[in-house]
């Protein structure tokens, strides 16, 4: 098994005219790489009618519905995170209940509100009750505010994880830009934060540093927007790890933190 914990799909109400081709490309590349499960999210309308990182409730519903449809279309391959905007607390909680009830397996928080904000607490409490992980978008060492998002960094996610010790958090795309050493230093002793290895960054030394900071049992394989970099990291890890350790990163760690039954062999 090979579980991609950080995938995205598109739909017809996004700025992407090529959304079908991109979805098809992900699935085709996944077949070549050996991905058995794409655990994906859709961030609303991807900027068409509300900002990518501040999606409106209406766009969130449409995106989540599109992902549920993909999950039904590819029941063997696609799993979903329900994406919510914590600024709309009532809507977020209702959307989580609706989408988890329809078969999604996790919650996606992007950058609508800082991880240290109390508005995230009811969402994390729902994650605890439902036993699902929270994949949190992270800017690795945010030194300033970036336009278009209220991004959190690793230290802020760790603060959230400390407030919710019974919730499993996934620090998104350690290779997704920014100072990953800052994030790794922050999460070292926080057992309920796992590291998603996705992102376009393939820096020499990054995977060794992830292993050193989090240990092999807190690493999750993923791709995000670049599947070639994900495959490269997998190939490199095959030289760093024993076969048994590699299985942890490929799928066993994911199977442990997602709800039982989310994947067929867990």
């Amino acid at each position, binding site marked *: 098994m090979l579980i991609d914990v950080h995938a995205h799909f598109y739909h017809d109400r996004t700025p992407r005219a090529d959304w079908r081709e*991109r979805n098809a*490309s992900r699935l085709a590349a996944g077949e070549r790489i050996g991905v058995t499960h794409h655990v994906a999210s859709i961030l609303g309308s991807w900027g068409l009618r509300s900002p990518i990182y501040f999606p409106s409730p209406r766009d969130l519903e449409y995106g989540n519905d599109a992902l549920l449809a993909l999950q039904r279309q590819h029941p063997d391959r696609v799993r979903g995170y329900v994406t919510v905007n914590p600024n709309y607390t009532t809507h977020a909680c209702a959307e989580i209940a609706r989408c988890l009830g329809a078969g999604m397996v996790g919650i996606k928080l992007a950058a609508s509100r800082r991880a240290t904000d109390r508005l995230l607490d009811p969402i994390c409490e729902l994650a605890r009750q439902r036993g699902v992980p929270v994949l949190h978008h992270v*800017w690795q060492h945010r030194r300033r505010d970036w336009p278009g998002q209220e991004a959190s960094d690793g230290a802020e996610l760790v603060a959230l994880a400390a407030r919710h010790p019974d919730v499993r958090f996934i620090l998104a795309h350690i290779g997704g830009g*920014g100072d990953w050493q800052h994030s790794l230093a922050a999460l070292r002793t926080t057992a309920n934060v796992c590291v998603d290895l996705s992102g376009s*960054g*393939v820096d020499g030394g990054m995977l060794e540093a992830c292993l050193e900071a989090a240990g092999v049992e807190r690493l999750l394989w993923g791709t995000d927007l670049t599947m*070639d*970099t994900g495959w*490269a990291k997998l190939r490199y890890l095959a030289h760093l790890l024993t076969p048994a350790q590699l299985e942890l990163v490929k799928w066993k760690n994911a199977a442990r933190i997602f709800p039982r039954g989310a994947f067929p062999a867990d």
Partner: protein
Amino acid sequence: MRIDVNAFLGAYPYRRVPGTAPDRLVEALARVDIDEAWVSHLPSLFWRQPMEGNAWLYDTVARERRLRPVPAVHPGLAGWAATLAEAADHGAPAVRCDPSYYGLDPAGPEVRGLAAACGAARLPLMMAVRLEDGRQRHPNDRAGELPASAVRALIRSDAAVRLLITHVDRAFIEEVHFGSTPEEAARIWWDICWIWGPPEDHLETLVETVGVERFVFGTGQPLRIPENAVAKLDLLDLGAARRAAIESENARTGLRR
């Protein structure tokens, strides 16, 4: 046959990078089946006198058959023309210049002079757009990225110059390629290390729109893991001949003529 046109030896000043010693680089080449690597001396890229790293580079590659030297040339310093001649004597497949790290205007008179001299010497001029993702650079690592406008200016500045541009993304390539005449564009090669694969499929698109003959296999190792360049080729349906063009033949027949 697989030729990595974009590799480095020596320490990086802004973070700890494993595998920077010559024997470790050779191990990495074996790991990913690379037969030949064109290597630059990484520390001297940041020196005031980058050309002082070339002696070590020549000495090191002379002991390892898989390595070819890509010496640095700083066209703002006295002696650069002799350094260029020395590169040819050592069989260098290219020379490199990193103007923003040297504090030079990337399209200024010094770099244009170097471009013309490289053209006359029939040596490709290698330039990196960046070494690291701009979002993660060290706070004191403030040299600007190589702008696309500079590449357009340089390729127009001399009819014989050939450029090898590394660490470059799709938008940059398209801006320069379609902002050049076909004759100009045919004298530029792009390494693939920074070009995205699926699901965005930037490399697949570029191979069709710009042409397979314009791309060469490069990794940026050890700053980047070399498995990435191989993986993105493995995700393309290129056919053996077109894959070989990127992996070795464009470097052998286009750049090293």
